[in-house]
């Protein structure tokens, strides 16, 4: 009798536990496994578990900053290390801290991998010959360099100056611009030199007007006439982005804001009602047979005190007619990947940035994660074209 009662209690407890923790996702568990593909087939072992800094392109070769500098020709299936030789420094153990692409030139911020000392910003069109940007004027203190940004035309360098007063560390940021690799000059000598703003994460140029996201601040204006504002939001911004000629800011609170952050969308949440925390998005246009423009917004796990937000993959929006109040996403409406490919790959991961590159009609899309390596998705440019789906690089 006792044994029967005990068995019933155990069975009831197991059933309660099972039903209480039941979370049904948009894809079936077995269906998802059955549809898996070998997304790790071309994975580079050294990339696993890393947080890639950037992907850039020079000519027909891609370069990635994952610790050091790596390269991969368009036709290659794997990445190899680049033995970087810098002018006057020669070869060494260099960390590729940040990088961007403008036209066929890549710009990379290198540091000494051992001492962490910043070595400067270098440009290259082939990955083997490097030229230091702005050696002459040197308005930037190299060791204060944080990262590089671009609006698609010009090179921007962000610095972080850390001072300590009464045991309290204060970080101030500056933004410098270099046109065509020429000498750097402060984007605004007054408002953007050692400014008391958050870390600038991205910059866009809408008809000559710049928009920067910088922590809880947004900075707008033209060179030499930038205005820093602190909108009445409760959260920091992830990035600025232009969608169909309109500027938006992504929020770390799961909202999307208009160009002055006066209007916000509702909070976007995932299938478990967890709020997204947006990073640096990208707009992807594919042209066959009709133009499809998609806005990909990554969800990043930002540090919040001693904890981190939940990394939740990314959201796909139809960029056509996109607006803060009209932005809508359906979990089953995926364009750059199948629903199942998404759940196999980037779902639940902290994605900090998307970067897209053009190869004729084809598109190569990279996702940079926090601690989950580098991911790639390729649109073949056919008519109608198709995406291969995400795979681990």
């Amino acid at each position, binding site marked *: 009798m006792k044994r029967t009662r005990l068995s019933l209690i155990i069975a009831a407890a197991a*059933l309660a536990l099972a039903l209480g*923790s039941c979370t049904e996702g948009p894809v079936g568990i*077995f269906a998802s*496994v059955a549809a898996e593909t070998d*997304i790790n087939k071309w994975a580079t072992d050294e990339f696993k578990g890393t947080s890639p800094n950037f992907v850039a392109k020079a000519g027909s070769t891609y370069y990635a900053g994952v610790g050091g500098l790596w390269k991969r020709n368009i036709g290659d299936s794997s990445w190899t290390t680049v033995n970087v030789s810098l002018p006057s420094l020669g070869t060494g153990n260099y960390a590729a801290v940040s990088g961007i692409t403008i036209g066929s030139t890549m710009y990379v911020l290198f540091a000494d991998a051992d001492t962490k000392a910043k070595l400067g910003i270098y440009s290259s069109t082939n990955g083997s010959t490097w030229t230091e940007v702005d050696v002459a004027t040197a308005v930037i203190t190299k060791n204060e360099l944080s990262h590089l940004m671009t609006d698609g035309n010009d090179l921007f360098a962000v610095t972080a100056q850390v001072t300590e007063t009464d045991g309290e560390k204060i970080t101030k940021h500056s933004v410098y611009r270099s046109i065509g690799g020429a000498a750097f000059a402060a984007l605004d000598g007054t408002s953007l030199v050692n400014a008391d703003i958050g870390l600038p994460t991205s910059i866009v140029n809408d008809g000559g007007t710049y928009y920067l996201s910088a922590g809880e601040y947004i900075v707008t204006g033209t060179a030499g006439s930038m205005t820093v504002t602190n909108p009445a939001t409760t959260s920091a911004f992830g990035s600025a982005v232009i969608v169909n000629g309109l500027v938006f800011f992504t929020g770390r609170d799961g909202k999307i804001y208009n160009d002055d952050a006066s209007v916000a969308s509702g909070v976007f949440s995932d299938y478990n009602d967890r709020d997204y925390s947006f990073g640096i998005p990208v707009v992807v246009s594919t042209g066959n047979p009709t133009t499809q423009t998609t806005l990909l917004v990554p969800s990043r796990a930002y540090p919040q005190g001693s904890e981190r937000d939940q990394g939740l993959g990314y959201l796909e929006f139809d960029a056509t007619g996109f607006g803060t109040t009209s932005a809508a996403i359906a979990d089953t409406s995926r364009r750059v990947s199948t629903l199942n490919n998404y759940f*196999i790959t980037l779902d639940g991961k902290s994605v900090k940035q998307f970067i897209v590159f053009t190869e004729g009609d084809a598109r190569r899309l990279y996702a940079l994660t926090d601690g989950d390596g580098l991911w790639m998705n390729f649109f073949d440019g056919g008519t109608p074209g198709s995406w291969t789906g995400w795979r681990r690089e």
Partner: protein
Amino acid sequence: MRSRITILLLAAALVAPAFAQSESPEAVEQRAALGFVEYTEYEKGDGIFAITLGTGIPLTFYDPSAPGFTQANAFPGFAFGLSYMGFLDERWALGGDIGGSFITTLADRRLFVAPFSFRAAYLINLSPFAILPSAGVGMAISSLGDYRHVDPLIKLGSSFYYRVNDDMSYGLNLFTNIIPQFYTDSSQNRVGFFQEVTLSLAYHL
């Protein structure tokens, strides 16, 4: 000549127990009067409690909408379990088991399947061996990343025991778990087939 004698002696030794077991009715009566009770190896009220470890092998998934079987896209994993079978008589037993299998998928994800089942078994006693084929129903909790799902379960298979002594047996268990998984979106429905190949230590209670 010596070898012939040896063979005869061995034959006699083998046959001797058979003769020794045939007691006269008087002897049986006498033993009963003295209060001896004769036990068989398996009888009503007995139970087998088994701890099992082994491998869980994903076999295939059936897509009812296709229809067809698809590749498992997963690798054999680690399986564990606890089971109890209580005997109703010398042949039939009822019981159940709980367990789990940790399985790595092709895309390097972790699938966990935990079956809970109630089973009916029929004993084929080939002492010291025993075969215990069984069939059962229950439920299975599947977990993949953030998702969990509770589904019905059909469990078919058999345990093969070698009795070491009165208290313990070694076992080999071969069970197939058939798990139909139903979703609101019927395109996601699949039937999973998983094979458990485990070894067990079975205690006779």
